[in-house]
């Protein structure tokens, strides 16, 4: 499996995984605390999550999307503490 896929006939699907809002997010907190120390005062809160960029061969059919969603909930996210969103990038 190569890391860099050619741009031809693949589609990029993105899965964003975030901790549920009620779950402690130490990473987001660390960023949140660091920003004002650097003089950045724009943020009222920061949460940090994961972004998966998945290259999918050919068309992204409804079936494929269902499969990706299944993979997201079994492997990419732990539904006990995380939520996820699957998006197809144009």
């Amino acid at each position, binding site marked *: 499996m190569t890391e860099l896929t050619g741009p031809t006939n693949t589609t990029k699907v993105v899965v964003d995984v975030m901790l549920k809002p009620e779950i402690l997010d130490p990473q987001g907190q660390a960023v949140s605390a660091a920003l004002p120390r650097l003089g950045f005062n724009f943020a009222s809160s920061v949460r940090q999550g994961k972004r998966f960029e998945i290259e999918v061969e050919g068309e992204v059919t409804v079936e494929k999307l269902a499969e990706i969603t299944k993979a997201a909930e079994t492997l990419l996210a*732990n539904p006990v503490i995380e939520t996820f969103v699957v998006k197809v990038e144009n």
Partner: protein
Amino acid sequence: MSLDTVQSAQTTPDRIQPFAELGLKPEEYARIREILGRRPTSSELAMYSVMWSEHCSYKSSKVHLRQFGEKAPHSDALLVGIGENAGVVDVGQGYAVTFKIESHNHPSFVEPYQGAATGVGGIVRDILTMGARPIAVMDPLRFGPADAPDTRRVLPGVVAGIGGYGNCLGLPNIGGEIVFDETYAGNPLVNALCIGVMRHEQIKLAKASGAGNLVVLFGARTGGDGIGGVSVLASETFGADGPAKRPSVQVGDPFAEKVLIECSLEIFAEDLVVGIQDLGGAGLSCATSELASAGTGGMLVALDDVPLRDPSLSPEEILMSESQERMCAIVEPSKIARFLEICQKWDVTATVIGEVTDGNRLVITWHGEVIVEVPPRTVAHEGPVYNRPLAKPAYVDRVAREILELPLPSDSEALKEAIYKLISSPNMADKSWVTSQYDKYVQGNTIQSQPEDSGMIRIDEQTHLGVAVSTDANASWSYLNPYEGAKLALAEAARNIATAGARPLAVTNCLNFGSPEDPGVMWQFAETVRGLADGCLEMGLPVTGGNVSFYNQTGEVAILPTPIIGVLGVIQDVRARTPMSHSAGDLEIYLLGKTEQDFAGSEWAYLHHQRGGVAPTSDLKKEMRLIELLLEGQEIFEAAHDVSQGGVAVTMCEMVLRNKIGATINLVDDAAVALFSETPGRVIVVVDPRNSERLVELAKKFEIELTELGRTGGALLRINEIEIPLAELDLAYTSTFPRLFG
């Protein structure tokens, strides 16, 4: 819903309350009403429900655990005994050491990484609470079958979680166990042990005394995590949908805990607290009621002053939240400014939430209205106590009658194959795939860690005083005979300290069992406690604390009774310790102790899917003589290694592989029995030939059988005619874990 105050509880006595959903039995609810002389407010109900849960109140185990106090041997070393956050022992030179083990089993099944991580976080705070600097951790673990898909999910997550948290705290991991068995599928055991050290005068207790003193909450803000955790996860069979509207899994923040540790130690060093308690299971309900209960008076807390991460939390939820990385201190008003200054230095949030009062009530207000008014003892210490029915399960006598049918090879090829089979089996194989994920060097005082018999830490760089700790359990023996199983685990842990040259001093334990509502499980538990208490009395070792974890079962199937016994010992000069393996050739190898036909509960039997027969019987008098022999003869031992799971075969393999220096041994009797039997009370020692006479004298003096096995040296492990090249043996030993989990 409107706020349920004490006043409204008085005027609406008949309001229906969700006590059952909170895990309380009707009698327990009735008792609360009786104590208060009215119905509890919803906040009071929340507090009682979490504090009277199995996890916090020990309601099923209390009647048995009393034996640890009743049968306690006299010990000059015990400074703080059972009842505090952790026991404390005197190790000499003005040092006190505290250690304790705790379980985090259920959460680690749901979310392996975070469950295990917060397990480490919790036990470290218990140790810190005693006033000690945490200096090391250990992690006895149990998992389902090594090749089961779910084990592939659980084990790597648990290991990464323990490492992720412990490494970030800067605590060396100096030992633990990893054992696989079907009964742990769905019920992994994640036990964590922490050791801490302080000077005698620095010992802190969890009590709120002195009216007018302030109650300070410091550390992380309170969030909605873990609400119902104790009551739901620990009290009822796992898997059911509990009442928790909030997730019961917590996410740990090891960085927050690291700064909390440094901040607390600075506060202790300046003697700024009267009492201190960590927030673990049952959160603020536990901390406030325990502090007040152990103190001299009452306590008044303004709950709305608690800093929140989630502003939508109700008072009930704040009382129950198990948000991690929080502590509660009692501080004299004259010292509060300095206390807050240190917190600010470490960027730790600290808030005065109340004060110690003259009365005898714990009063909690919410924006000025009283929502809790209870006698704190009734919450913290006078929970229900059950004398649950117990009955010897039918299997016990049945399996005792089983005759084991095990292959006992006699020809060299078959014996060699058997050795390979054992050494590469998941229970016996090299665990460095796991332990290399743990920092063992941080703090610069680690003398021994995995795979030595015990972990050893230097506590004074000038005098070289040190402590050693080992944790052990043989659940197969406990299954066959829980009374003997507990004694044998105790003996093994003590032996594992003594092989290094440390003198056993004190005991901690974590008792992992199935449902206490099953009379058979309750019998296993009672027998285990009786065995451990008797064993400790016989060996003169006090139990300083521990933990009980029930409900480790799936449906009707309980885990094997798994009492993890931790023994702490002291060594005057760590430079003189005895390692587990020889570092030179031409030394003589001896077996101390006698080998019988002991295959019941052995690894050899497990590999042949047999778990029957009669477990060995402990002889603790003899174990103590063996320990005395090891200590008295320490200077002559080039190496000493405990013989346990896998018998002499595995012990010898581990010894030759440690420094890649081979050995030649000759077994005169039945080789299969000599190699694979697991008779307890045995140690392999290595001495210089010049010291063999001294060894013979020692064996005679302490009445321990002594058998010469052979000599060290070469690139082979040679046993009679069997020749095993070390490189090949090493490959068999080290490739199992990477193959399964890499």
